[in-house]
């Protein structure tokens, strides 16, 4: 009794028949292919260089961390919930839109007065002690920049021999 051929077997038989119409020649070809397969199956993939994994991981570590979709979803959810809670608190406090606009206008006027006052004070100090003020400001800015640089990239602050 013969077993039915699957698609691959049928395809192989067809290819062999196409390549070698004569039955004896076909059998010889099939045998040559079987022998070749044995040799091919003995081949193995070579190992990559020993530092391969560490090199890949160094590149991976150098990559900026990608924000995942789940993190974006969480951020949007927090923002929406925060806004909704604020709106709810506003409505429940009984404040009207007119009252809010008035408070906003008052805050703007107060801010303007503070800024004008600060400018006047600064101008007065500049007139009386311009040079000491410039030096003091320059020192503050420099110290702040150096401090920030050390915080951001500590390796940049090392002294190279």
């Amino acid at each position, binding site marked *: 009794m013969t077993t039915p051929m699957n698609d691959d077997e049928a395809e192989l038989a067809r290819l062999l028949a196409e390549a070698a119409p004569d039955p004896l020649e076909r059998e010889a070809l099939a045998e040559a*292919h079987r022998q*070749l397969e044995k040799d091919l199956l003995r081949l193995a*993939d070579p190992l990559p260089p020993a530092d391969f994994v560490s090199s890949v991981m160094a590149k*991976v570590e150098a990559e900026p961390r990608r924000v995942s979709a789940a993190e974006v979803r969480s951020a949007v959810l927090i923002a929406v919930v925060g806004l909704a809670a604020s709106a709810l608190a506003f409505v429940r406090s009984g404040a009207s839109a007119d009252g809010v606009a008035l408070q906003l206008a008052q805050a703007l006027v107060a801010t303007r007065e503070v800024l004008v006052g600060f400018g006047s004070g600064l101008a007065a100090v500049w007139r009386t002690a311009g040079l000491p003020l410039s030096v003091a400001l320059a020192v503050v800015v420099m110290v702040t920049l150096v401090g920030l640089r050390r915080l951001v990239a500590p390796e940049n602050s090392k002294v190279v021999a």
Partner: protein
Amino acid sequence: MSLLGMTADTTQPWLDEVRRARRGDSSAFAALVRGLQRPVFGLCLRLLRSEAEATEVAQETFLRAYQHLERFDETRPFDLWVLTIARNLCLDILRRRQKVQTEDVEPHAPTLASHEPTSEELAMASQQRRSLEDAMATLSDDDREVLALYYVQKRTTKEIAVIMGVAPGTIMARLFRAREKLRTRMTQAEQGAA
């Protein structure tokens, strides 16, 4: 394995590591690299025939995989996804090579060794392997690729079809034609040596 021996493996051994890597666990990604470095590097080497380029492309493959880990479809095997990335990167390089008509290709035979060298049969086996590798090196990129995936990496025809982006029904014919070309080249080489 015979002429028609391999069956499909539907398990996904890398899924746990992929999920942990997605959550930012770099040790999980390192485990993925360790597990797949050999087939990825092997495929790159077979296609590019340059150890330096193969190393670079294999590293780039894992970097791309890491960058696009979120896009990986968990219903598909991770190793096939990575091999597809590697293949595409290799094909880009091969296309560029064809454009500039580069002919001086670095031989890779010394690195393609068997996994079971024995002292008694080493010389003969080594010679046979070398002949086979030399003959394989003369085949086209497509032929080398299909032979490497099927016989060296023991992939199924369905897996090869996924990696190469072709219909599974065409793989047997490709394999047969590649074997036939290989057999012809080896016969010619033997006759030339005699």
